[in-house]
């Protein structure tokens, strides 16, 4: 927030109302920022540098937005290695640089909020990274755990189970 008076700054406003100033050049990693700034220009704002542009991110908490800003700033210095599929390794630090691997070494709540924020702010490399982290997180988990993680309803499970059991009986004979 000490960059408040710097030329070429955009102010990202969190759900709690906290302001995170960020240079426009760096903030343009977010397509949401790009789009918003474009709209501001169309409306012929007084400040061509965008100093007064505030972008409300009403569904991004301050702690998450702080991480997003960290990501963007670091990305401007050391762009993340693009994640390509199929993955050649399950070691995150071998897929992307260590800083990025450490960046997503967070708890589940933060991880999913980062996914949501990356998606909302349309920051593709961050979305790639966080989705990769989630895919690693769910690896090896049971169906029930995964359903819980993704908040998949268990409604009608008994009905489903009946259908599945019926399907399984036929298919299992083929497997063996």
């Amino acid at each position: 927030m000490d960059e408040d008076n710097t030329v070429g700054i955009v102010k990202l406003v969190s759900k709690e109302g906290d302001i995170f100033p960020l240079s426009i050049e760096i903030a343009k990693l977010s397509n949401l920022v790009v789009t918003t700034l474009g709209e501001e220009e169309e409306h012929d704002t007084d400040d061509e540098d965008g100093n007064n542009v505030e972008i409300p991110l009403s569904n991004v908490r301050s702690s998450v937005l702080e991480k997003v800003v960290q990501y963007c700033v670091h990305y401007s210095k050391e762009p993340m290695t693009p994640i390509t599929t199929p993955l050649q390794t399950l070691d995150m630090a071998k897929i992307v640089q260590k800083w990025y691997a450490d960046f997503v070494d967070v708890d589940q709540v933060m991880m999913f909020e980062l996914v949501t924020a990356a998606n909302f702010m349309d920051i593709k490399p961050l979305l790639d990274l966080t989705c990769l982290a989630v895919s690693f997180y769910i690896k090896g988990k049971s169906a029930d755990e995964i359903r819980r993680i993704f908040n998949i309803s268990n409604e009608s499970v008994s009905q489903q189970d009946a259908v599945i059991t019926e399907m399984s009986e036929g298919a299992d004979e083929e497997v063996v």
Partner: protein
Amino acid sequence: MEHLPDETLKHIFRYSDPRTLLSCVRSCTRFRTVLDDDDGMWRYSCGKHSDLSVGASFREKAFIGTVLREIKQSQGMGGRENIILSCLSTELIRRITQHYIVPFMNNGPDHPRMTFDVRGDALRYALDILEPHMVQKLESALLISLRASIHGNGDYPRVIDDDMRLVEEIQRNRIIGHMLLESQSHHSQRDLFKAMLREAIMRESSDDIVFRALASRIANRAGVVKMTDGVMTNIGYGVFMILANLLWRPMLMHKDMLRFEAREFEYSSIDLWNDIPPTIIQQDPQCLLGPFTVYHCVIVPGQIEVSAAKLGLCNLYNRQFSSDDLITYG
């Protein structure tokens, strides 16, 4: 937590291995046990024979194809599960497409000697699940791969040593394809088929005759269906070209190589074959030559369905055929 958007779920699944993907869907968790057993996976996905030289990676993808078909049957359970199924299907299809097409394009290091069988399986699985607009992409990749093979860069460098013969064969295919396009009636298709057989009988050994007949039959049927529709669609033509290339190209191969490609057949009454004299379609488990894969193709407007037609052609292959036998096909 809030529901992740579908697109984000798909994004996550892009990085997930097949085991995890299967775990996401209750109805598919049982498939995980198959993944644990390579032999089991092979049996499940590719039939009874386990002696074909295909890699574990292909087996996995073939297995995924099998799972996909079951997923389709599983849909309709409602709610979020359907979204997951949809994401899972999309992701598996993407993987299969990528897996199938890339090696075809490259004949690459991972599949330096991708066999004709593998390509056939790829076709079978892919066409069964791919969206029609993706078929042409697969077809192009297949053709590139086949041409590479024919030119000695791929599977069969030893047996393709006569460029003139290759040119002749390609020219023949082109002419036949043109004739199919130009044909206006079922009758002319049948005449064409007979003519092709006669030509084959004159030119080739009895072994080749059999396969030419089969290829012709398939091509003929595909053509007939398209003509019935009155429109030669790109998809229809693509399927024809795939079939033609799949089934004509092996005829250039040495008999031993054909044997290498052998796969199981069993008689099916699928309409494509139901007018082949039953007397020559008998299963023989002792058959030394082993089985062969031929593909059954049904084209209806807006939909393609290709599935393996299993026939007792191993017996057919062993028999001493006369030209009269074959002519009765048409």
